[in-house]
């Protein structure tokens, strides 16, 4: 690996490597904990609701639940990776070591983004492997599964960079997580189909970008969803491009990083 990286790419590669080593050093907290949490949700909800709820014809509730839980964890962990790394570096002051370097704002963005995607996908893969003990999942459209996992983690990784740059204190970041990320992920159809909601709440759910990520990801497994996967993919893709553009603007202007 050492020899194929030339000096032009070594800067962003080093930042990416540092970010990966950082979360892997505390994998018990950053990977094992969310996997255990998701599997506990699966154990309890599937046990309680399996015989009472059927969302799609021919799809057991446990199987319906798994893609939603995987995607929710992918999104939350992608967000947590970039946001916690940046806020920690800001509060501890060591972000200066990166700011003093010749890394461009695009390279800074790419390194944090890719690290967030990798953590999200690693957590998602581990939950998938753990969930195989519960039910044998089919994969109707693997390309959609991968596309939504990739774009969803990219979207939330980008959102995490914005939150990390914006927040000045840990309590502001906790507020972001508890009042924005958690409600959006729980009200996105992880545990239900939005068709089971009253019309008003169906409309509200359609404003939640998390809904499209989870619905599209679930479509990849069962070939069924509440919305066309192409519409979901377009909404997620456009949301990602919009947030990426905002993030790059913030980084280029030095917002809250370079006064």
């Amino acid at each position, binding site marked *: 690996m050492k020899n194929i990286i030339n000096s032009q790419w070594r800067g962003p590669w080093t930042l990416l490597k540092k970010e990966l080593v950082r979360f892997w050093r505390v994998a018990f907290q950053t990977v094992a904990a969310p996997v255990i949490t998701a599997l506990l949700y699966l154990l309890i909800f599937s046990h309680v609701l399996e015989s009472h709820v059927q969302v799609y014809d021919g799809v057991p509730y446990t199987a319906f639940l798994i893609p939603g839980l995987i995607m929710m964890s992918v999104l939350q962990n992608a967000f947590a990776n970039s946001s916690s790394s940046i806020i920690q570096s800001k509060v501890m002051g060591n972000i200066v*070591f990166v700011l003093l370097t*010749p890394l461009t704002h695009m390279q800074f963005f790419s390194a944090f983004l890719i690290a967030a995607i990798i953590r999200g996908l690693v957590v998602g893969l581990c939950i998938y492997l753990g969930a195989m003990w519960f039910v044998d999942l089919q994969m109707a459209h693997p390309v959609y599964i991968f596309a939504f996992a990739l774009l969803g983690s990219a979207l939330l990784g980008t959102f995490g960079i914005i939150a990390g740059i914006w927040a000045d204190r840990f309590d502001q970041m906790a507020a972001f997580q508890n009042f924005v990320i958690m409600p959006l992920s729980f009200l996105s159809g992880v545990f239900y189909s939005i068709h089971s909601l009253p019309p008003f709440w169906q409309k509200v759910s359609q404003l939640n970008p998390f809904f499209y990520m989870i619905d599209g990801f679930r479509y990849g497994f069962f070939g069924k969803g509440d919305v066309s996967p192409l519409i979901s993919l377009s909404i997620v893709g456009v949301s990602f491009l919009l947030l990426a553009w905002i993030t790059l603007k913030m980084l280029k202007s030095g917002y809250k990083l370079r006064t």
Partner: protein
Amino acid sequence: MQSSHAVTIAGVHKHFGSLHALRGVDLHIEQGEFFALLGPNGAGKSTLINILAGLIKPDAGNIAVMGHDVVTQYRRARQLLGVVPQELVFDPFFNVREMLRFQAGYFGRGPENDVWVDEILEGLGLADKASTNMRKLSGGMKRRALIAQALAHRPPVIVLDEPTAGVDVELRQMLWEFIKKLNREGHTIILTTHYLEEAEALCHRVAMMKAGQIVALDSTANLLNKFAGKSLRLTLGEVVLPIEIQDLVRHQEAGIFTFALSDMAQIEFVLAALRSQNIKVIDMQLNEADLEDVFLSLVGKTE
């Protein structure tokens, strides 16, 4: 384009709200110089250093490192610059060697740089701590690691912002020996410090800042001659001094008189005046002025 100046600062202004922190700073620092930037708290030293490092944007004016503008050509300018921050900051996830490798990697340097990393670790007395997590280092060791990080990519221009604040005498001596060696090898060193004796002993040139402006800029020797001269401390007892030397008295207490002299010839002038009044000299002490005298005469007793 490489400039003969290590750092060129031209007409730099910076406002923080209503505070005019830098009021048109102009300065050239030559390659290979050991340069000191002195001034009381709030004079604008750190703001100037932070603009040089790209951490703060100037409102007006330019700064260039070896001819490369720190805003428009920031990638090249930062390659040439190593900055030791004032605050004792560190990344708690990594050990010393990992941090240095990461830091060099950000600047595009790979495994070929490991020999230099070993040299820095050796030179700063960190070799036996290379595998220790940053969190577990003592304050002095963290300070050394901070300096090592600034040097990891082998920059020709090194900025040390208060590097010896809170550092014990032994470590200070060790750090200065290492920094002097770097300077002898051709690195340009820019230092801000509160220890004026350090600036006096180490630096070829000194700039003194006050309220966002440079109020003095000269070689250390010239500044000492121009502003401070020498002081003559005479123990004479309770006497009345001849009128012609009374203006030279800077301080008087319990029969001990301190005279401020601009040159050596004035010693004989003072002694002749005393002899003419039959005043006996009980004790005599001649002191060289130091940068502290210059500093106080220029910026006042604000620290």
